[in-house]
Every structure is written in C-alpha cells, then in structure tokens.
C-alpha cells in the first residue's frame, strides 16, 4: 500500500511539472504564435551510424538541441525563418535555412573530416555544449579519441581511458577497477547497451571487457547523474556499441602482441538495416604447446570477446536493435581449471510517438558467472560455481515540448537472481561434501521524471526525481545476527514472498547560468541509492568476488553530492576549460571486519561493517579540440574518508582511493598526412596504506603490529606512455587501408609500487625488510590495424 502511494505521488509530480512548463510557455509567448516541430535523425554519412550528442543550433535564437543516444533530435519553434547549423566534433558543419510553416522532418547525414588536413574554416557555431548545457561532472569520449591514447601492450581500452579523467582514480597499476570522486569501485554502474556489466575485467584487470572495435561512444557521469539512471552511488559509465555500417560492407581488424581483433559490418538492406559482429581473442597460450617445459604445454590462458548487433529501421518512427556481448577468461593447468565472464543481451524498440515524443523500450539480460575446479578422478576433485543474473525491462520517454522544455520520464524493473556459490565434489572418488550459499532473489524498480527548462535568456534549470525500490523476494534464507555479529538463527522465506522492501526518493537538480554562451556557472545536486555491492575487501579484487544485495541485514547505501563549477571555452570552442568543486556524503557505506571471510560464506552479512564516507575535491580540466592537437590536461585535488563502526577503533581513516593530488596529460598530435603521435603522462599521490610499526615473535614468525588504518602512503605514482601511428597512403577510393601503431608503456621505466610486503629474512630470522612489488617496467608493443571496404 505504501509503495503505491509513493508511485501516485510521483505521477502527480510528473503531471504537475509537465503542466506547469506548458503553462509557462504559453504565458510567455501568448496564444497568437503558432509553433511547429523540426525533428529527425543525425547520422554519419559514410556508415549510417547514429551520431550521439550532435548539435542542432538555431542561429537566430542562439539555442538548439542535441541528438540523443539514438541520434534523434526534436525542436519546437515559433513559425518563422531559421538557419539550422548541424555540427559534431570531427565532422563538417552543415548549415540549412528553413521556412517553418509546418512540422518538418529533417534528418541529416554529417560527413567526417578525412585524415588529410585542410584549412578548415572555424565557425562560431562549433560545439559549445560544454558551456551551455545544464550538465556537469560528465565526460564524453568517442572511440576515436580513445584509440589515440597509448595503451598497455597495444590493447586500446575504454576503462584505461576513463582512468585518465579528472576525479577518476585507478585502484591499482594495470587494474580495470576505478574510483570516482572517492567512491568504491563497485559504486560505478557500467552499462553496455543498457545492460549492467558486473565485472569489466579480463586477465586480472589488465584489460577490460570492452573491445574498442565494437564500441561507438562512452560517457561517464561522475556526479549530476540524470534521473534516468540509478542503482549506484558514484558514477555511471554508459557505453554504446556500434550499430553497423548501413551503407557498405567493411572489415576492420588488428593484430597485436597479445590479441587480435576482427570486425565485420555492413548493410542487410541498405539504409534500413545493418549488422556488426566483432571478436577479439588473446593468443599467448597458442604458443604454449611449443614450450619445452612439459608442464606448460597443456596450460590454457586466454580470453575472448564477441560483440554482435543488428538493427532494422522499420519506418521513420520505428527502429529495433538487438545486441549481445559474450566474453570469457579461460585458465587451466595440470591441477586447476578456472573460467569467468559476462554475457549481456539487449533488445530495443525505438518508437517516435510524434515529432516531439520519443520513446525507447528495452528488454535486458545480463549474466556474470565463474567456475573454479580441479580435474576429476581425484578424491579431492571439486567444482565451484557462482553466478548473478539479471532480467530487466525498461521504458524511457523524451518529450521535446518546446525549445524551453525537454521532459524525460520512464520506469524500469530488474529481477536479480543471485547464485552466490556452490562447491561440491566431482567424480566417483571424491570425499568433498557440497557447500552452498543459499540463492536469493530481488526486484529493483525505478521510476523517474525530469525536465530541463530554460528560464529567460541565461538561466536553465534541470530538475528531476527518481523513486527507486528494492524488494527481496523468496525463496531466501535470512540469518539473524546478535550485537557481536554472531548468527543466532535464520528464517526461511517461501517463493513469492516479499520479505524486505526498501525505497528511496532521489532528487536531482542542475542549475546553469550562462553569460552569452561564452562562459557559464553551473551547480548540481544529486541523491543516489545503491542496493547491490561487491564482497571485496582487497584493493584490486579477483573475478571470484561476488555481488550481494541489500537485505534485512544490509541497508541500502545512500549518497548526496553537491557540485559547482565555472565553464569557459576559448578560441571558437576549440579549447574547453572548466573548474569544478564537489562534496559528497555517503551513508551506510559497506566495509568488512578485519580478516573477513567473504568466500563461500553463507553468513557473509555477519562480516559486514557499516559506516559513513565523505569526499571532496576540485577538478580543473582543459580539453583541446584543435584540428591537429587534441586531448586534455587535468589536475585534481581531492580527499576521501571513511568512518566505519568496528574498523580502526571507529575513527575516520583515508579511503583506499584517497590520492590528494593527481594530474593527467593526454595529448595527440597529427604530424602530417601519415604520422601522428600520442602521449600520456599521469601523476598521483601514492595510495594510502597500513604499515607495521611494531613486531611480535609468535611461533617462529615475526608478526606485524600495525599502524592505524591507511596512515602511510606508497611512493607517488607517475608514468609516461607514448605512441606513434604510421598510416598507409590514403587515396580516395582505395579499398584497403592500414596503419601501424608503436606504443611504449612506462617510457622512463619507473618502478611504480603495486604493493609493499614486509619480509622476514631467510638467513637471519630476526631481520625484516620492506620489499616493493611492481608489475611493469618499460613495455613496448606494436599493433597492425587494417580496414577494408567494398566501396
């Protein structure tokens, strides 16, 4: 009953603001003016891919619209004559004069700049959305930008690129985990075509699961999270897959030192439907049979990714997409077998109800599973399985009411199925009993509405509200713990019962004041709830860490973040600058007791300790979009703390991601028609760490007595990477193109600390010393990329 009342409130709220904005519009403009809608789709002329975030600017009104993730835009204006300017970074700007006396459908194909550089006329309408959009704490990168960043072993990586942004910290050298504005790595929602990716790591995190050939566009929200997203405290990383070339067949591929890639795409029916299929596999182990070491010959160690997508444009108003991802890491040797990976699937129906009301409906599947075991035939033979599966349905609506109001609303339901772990003996000889952590199930629901409203000449306000709800449903087993976290008894719930319901109101607010589109100030507030978390108390984690849900014993985590910033563009928007400050409060933050047992533990909830966290910082960003030179330079000053009952005697301590000063320089320079160079330099204060201050001798071993939590720091981290790309000669009409990329990771061979161990000397057991572990010295690599089309 309570829930339905809340839903009613939300609908009322939605209705009220839609009504009020309509009212404001008519109030301002009177009833005499007729207004009409211009709408359509903005795509890439060469391959038909929808362009996300392209700008349609109306010169006369100094306002405009931005295309959504499907490339659609809509503008409702008064009757009159207008000059529309279509623009997108890396594409030629197009101007078109229209006489608006009726609704107009105007789709447009933008043409990308070719490699050969021409003197390009810089127009004042170049993208100024950094200044004029009421959106802050976000960063969008297209895949071309990411591909120019020098990469570890030549494997271009979305997550590694994200880690170079201000406010984002890597959790460890070479790791795919990242912390956003002092949050934990599991507080980031990672979406691939709307499906949650629960573990973005391959090979212990050295590579992420995102094959760059299959990816179109990446957007990170570090704060100011729009109301249509929910479920994580700190960030949303929204990754969209390519749709496939709808005009011609294309083959792209690459051969690197550890992996090769191949992508095939093309039209099924020209301009109407297309497909893309993209695969990647590492092949270090293919050489193992050649090894002289007998033990190594049967070892396996590889990962693969397969991305596939088809889309079909039924008519102007309907388009459907089906996309999937399958990836797995496989490892085996004489005594162990292990594999893990994600599968996601998304079916989407994009429907335009009218020129102003767009919608999208999605059905989403996501699964993360792992397996660990021994060969059978032994009395200790066993296998261990775990998985987490989601089934979801989602509807999102955008209503482009007029140039002053854009309303969004929608709802989603996800059914989570947790199979945390089951280990059992296999084969006839085994003596191992079955150990199983009970399965559990939950519904996660969200409903939201928001409006972006322009008030007067300079002021824009974006306001929204999300209601999230989380319900544990049976069958399930809930343990009851006493005040010292000992399980006393348990309750078993039958299938179909809802045994715990949490809900949260999540207001989102953004304010913008722009000074004649040259510079602006912005502020935002967002509250976020998180109902799922990772049982991981190590800094980097392994693929065997499991996700667990809010429950009668685990309260949802809640965060409030405020941010304010100043944004200014220079040189006709080719240089974007911003400075942002933020403060974030987190409640019911999860940590684990000392020496927690998180593996195959059916009383995991007794290992949890709760508390609060807070973080704050200032991020300065200069982003360059010059014709030859692009990239960014950023500096971040930030702090992050935790205070958890039962940890560090209840005193506050620096979070593991507290690195007060960090700098990233990411630059790419096009030298000429065939050469380009890229360089990355990163610097960060050393991560906080707990070191021993005393020793006790117990059982012949020197046992450490530790400082307070995280009272020391590793040495500062810094690293320079460099890459040089040499392209084959390009001529119009040439079907085969190639480039060769040389890259060097850690050019000046700094031995950055991965961990420090305190070791007891073998010769003299009274002597202890500190030993630094580092993972990578200087690592050169070479990658050959090719592109073939049937033009």
């Amino acid at each position, binding site marked *: 009953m309570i829930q339905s009342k809340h839903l009613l409130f939300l609908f009322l709220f939605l209705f009220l603001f839609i009504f009020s904005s309509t009212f404001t519009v008519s109030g301002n403009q009177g009833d005499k003016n007729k207004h009409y809608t211009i709408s359509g789709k903005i795509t890439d002329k060469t391959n038909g891919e929808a362009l996300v975030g392209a700008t349609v600017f109306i010169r006369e009104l100094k306002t405009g619209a931005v295309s959504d993730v499907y490339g659609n835009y809509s503008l409702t204006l008064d009757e009159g004559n207008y000059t529309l300017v279509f623009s997108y970074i890396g594409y030629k700007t197009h101007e078109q004069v229209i006489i608006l006396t009726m609704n107009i459908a105007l789709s447009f194909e933008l043409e990308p700049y070719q490699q050969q550089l021409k003197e390009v006329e810089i127009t004042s309408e170049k993208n100024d959305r950094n200044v004029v959009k009421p959106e802050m704490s976000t960063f969008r990168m297209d895949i071309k930008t990411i591909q120019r960043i020098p990469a570890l072993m030549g494997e271009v990586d979305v997550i590694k690129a994200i880690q170079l942004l201000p406010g984002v910290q890597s959790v*460890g050298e070479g790791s795919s985990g990242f912390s956003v504005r002092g949050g934990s790595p599991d507080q980031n929602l990672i979406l691939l075509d709307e499906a949650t990716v629960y573990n973005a790591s391959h090979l212990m995190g050295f590579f992420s699961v995102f094959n760059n050939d299959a990816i179109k566009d990446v957007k990170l929200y570090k704060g100011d999270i729009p109301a249509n997203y929910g479920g994580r405290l700190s960030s949303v990383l929204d990754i969209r897959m390519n749709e496939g070339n709808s005009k011609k067949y294309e083959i792209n591929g690459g051969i690197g030192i550890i992996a090769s890639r191949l992508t095939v795409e093309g039209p099924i029916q020209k301009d109407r439907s297309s497909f893309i299929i993209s695969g990647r596999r590492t092949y270090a182990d293919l050489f193992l049979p050649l090894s002289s070491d007998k033990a190594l010959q049967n070892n396996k160690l590889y990962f693969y990714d397969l991305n596939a997508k088809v889309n079909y444009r039924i008519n102007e108003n309907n388009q459907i997409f089906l996309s999937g991802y399958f990836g797995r890491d496989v490892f085996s040797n004489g005594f162990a077998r292990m594999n893990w990976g994600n599968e996601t699937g998304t079916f989407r129906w994009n429907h335009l109800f009218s020129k102003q009301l767009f919608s999208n409906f999605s059905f989403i599947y996501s699964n993360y599973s792992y397996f660990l075991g021994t060969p059978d035939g032994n009395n200790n033979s066993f296998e261990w399985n775990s998985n987490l599966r989601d089934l979801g349905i989602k509807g999102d609506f955008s209503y482009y009411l007029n140039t002053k109001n854009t309303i969004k609303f929608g709802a989603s339901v996800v059914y989570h199925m947790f199979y945390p772990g089951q280990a059992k003996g296999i084969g006839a000889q085994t003596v191992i009993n079955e150990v199983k952590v009970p399965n559990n199930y939950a519904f996660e629901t969200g409903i939201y509405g928001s409006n972006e409203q322009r008030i007067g000449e300079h002021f824009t306000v974006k306001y929204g509200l999300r209601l999230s709800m989380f319900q544990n449903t049976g069958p399930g087993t809930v343990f009851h713990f006493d005040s010292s976290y000992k399980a006393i008894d348990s309750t078993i719930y039958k299938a179909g019962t809802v045994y715990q319901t949490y809900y949260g109101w999540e207001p989102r607010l953004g304010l913008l004041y722009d000074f004649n589109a040259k510079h602006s100030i912005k502020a935002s507030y967002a509250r976020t709830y998180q109902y799922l978390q990772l049982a991981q108390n190590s800094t980097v984690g392994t693929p065997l860490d499991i996700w667990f849900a809010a429950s009668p014993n685990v309260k949802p985590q809640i965060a409030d973040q405020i941010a304010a910033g100043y944004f200014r563009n220079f040189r006709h928007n080719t240089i974007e600058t911003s400075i942002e400050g933020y403060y974030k409060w987190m409640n019911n933050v999860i940590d684990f007791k000392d020496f927690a047992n998180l593996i195959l533990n059916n009383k995991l909830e007794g290992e949890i300790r709760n508390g609060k966290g807070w973080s704050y910082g200032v991020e300065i960003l200069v982003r360059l979009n010059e014709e030859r030179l692009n990239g960014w330079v950023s500096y971040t000053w930030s702090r992050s703390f935790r205070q958890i009952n039962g940890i560090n005697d209840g005193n506050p301590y620096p979070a593991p991601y507290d690195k007060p000063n960090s700098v990233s320089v990411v630059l790419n320079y096009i030298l000429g028609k065939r050469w380009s160079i890229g360089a990355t330099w990163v610097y960060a204060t050393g991560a906080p760490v707990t070191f021993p201050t005393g020793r006790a001798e117990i059982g012949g071993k020197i046992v450490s007595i530790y400082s307070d939590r995280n009272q020391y720091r590793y040495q500062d981290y810094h690293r320079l990477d460099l890459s040089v790309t040499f392209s084959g000669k390009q001529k119009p009409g040439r079907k085969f193109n190639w480039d060769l990329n040389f890259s060097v990771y850690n050019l000046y061979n700094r031995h950055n600390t991965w961990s420090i161990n305190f070791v007891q000397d073998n010769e003299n057991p009274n002597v202890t010393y500190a030993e630094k572990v580092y993972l990578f010295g200087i690592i050169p690599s070479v990658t050959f990329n090719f592109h073939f089309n049937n033009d």
Partner: protein
Amino acid sequence: MIKKFRHIVVVSMLIAACTEKINVNLDSTYTRLVVDGNIASDTATYQIRLTKTADYFFNEPVPPVTRASVFLSDGENIFPLAETKPGISGIYSTDSTFVGKKDKTYTLHIDLSEPISGESAFDAICKLNHVTHLDSIGTVFEPDWGKEGIWKIKLWAQEPGNEVNYYLFNLYRNGKLLTDTITKKVVSDDKFYNGSYMNGVDVIYLNNAHKWETINPGDTIILQMSGITEEYYNFIMQVQQSGLNIPFFSGPPANVKGNIDHGGIGFFAAYSNSFAKTIVHR
C-alpha cells in the same frame, strides 16, 4: 583447502611481478606483552614463552619477559610454571608430568614483575578440544606439479558429523618437526568434510624443490592431527595472512586477534592430538 586453492590459482596466473628491496621509515609503537605456547592432551613438559614487542625494524631477538609468575588452572587444580633460566629465558614450563584433559577449559594466569605499558596481570582462556582418531596416513608424489614435483600427505579418518571441528596438522620427518614455524602449519575447518569418512584427503603439500622441507622415499613420517578451537584456528589463519599483501585478495592489514586479555598479543592454545605414522614409498 578450497579457499587456499583459490589463492594458488590466482597467484599462478600472475604475470611475473618484479620485486626490489626498499627503505621505508616507520614510526614506533608502545610495547605489549607477547604470549606464545600451548598445552596438549599428552603427558609432557609444555612451554609458554613471554616476550615484549619491539619496533618493526628492531632486527634483534625480541626481549624476553623474565621473573613473571605464571600458572595454569583447569577450574579445579592449579599448575605452576617455572622459568627455565630464571631472569634470562622468559620461557616458562610445566612439570614433565603435566597432561591436558579433554574438554576441560584452561586458564593461563600471568603476573609480571614489572608492568608493560601499565598492565601487569594477564589471563588467557582456551578449551582443550577432543579430536577424532587418525586411522592412517599415506603419501603420493605428483611429478608434474611444479618444477620438481609435489608430495601430498593424505589421511584416513572419520570426521564427526554432530559438531563443527577445527584441525591443526603438523608433520615430523624422522622424528624432526618439519612444520616448525606457524606459517608452515596447516589448519582446516570441516566445512567440506563434515560427517564424512575422510578417505585419503590431502592435508599437506610439500614442494619437492625445497630440499630442506620435503620428504624422500625411506623417511619415516608422523602426522599430528590436533583438535583446536575456532579462535585458535582463526588466529593461525590470521598470522599466515598477516604481512602478505597481494592486492588481488589481501584485505587491509590488521592486527591478529589472539586470546590474551588486557592488550596482550599472541595465543595460549590447548588441544588434543592424534598421531599416525608411515614410511614414504615412491
């Protein structure tokens, strides 16, 4: 076993990391009492060692705590312990006739002659748990595991199903203790075997490349299986994890939790033993 297996697998996947010795400046901390010793169900002389903590890079033998008054009680009787070299050793031993009784709870009392960080009286309590009968043991050599092969020590015993048990394993080679430091000892709970007949379960792996701690055909080996408390099991697990910092799965470092009150460190353990002997065959 399965949990350790996870560590082995993950570590073996690690691309060879590099290490180098470095200098780290560490602060000092206040001194604590350290208690280290045990009693068991066999008639023997048992020793309890008392020492003080020192700064981490002290790099000399830790100072002994001498001239303390130490005694054991089982709730009915008192057993005094005497310092082996009074004023020098800090090692306190029972009579050679001492025998721990199964399922009794023992308290170790310590009164210091000089207080350590303001405390001079310490107690530690431990129940002496029983243990199942060890029927027999055996060895298997796996030549393909590791560089020079691995020896597996297997055991045969009935695991009691009506209780939660924790085990400690020690191995003797030709009368000499091979598992001579706490990090080499093996502990296990009964999670995967509860109530089963442990029909040749692997309990200890010996790396044949480590000549000083492996076994050879012809050696006489004895496996000691001890029934320990959950608290002692956790303590040994914590000591074994402490100091190891592998970012993949090491939790934040923390002080090990023993059973000495008033801020003392270490453990006073009590357990019962079951032994089995075999001669190693290839």
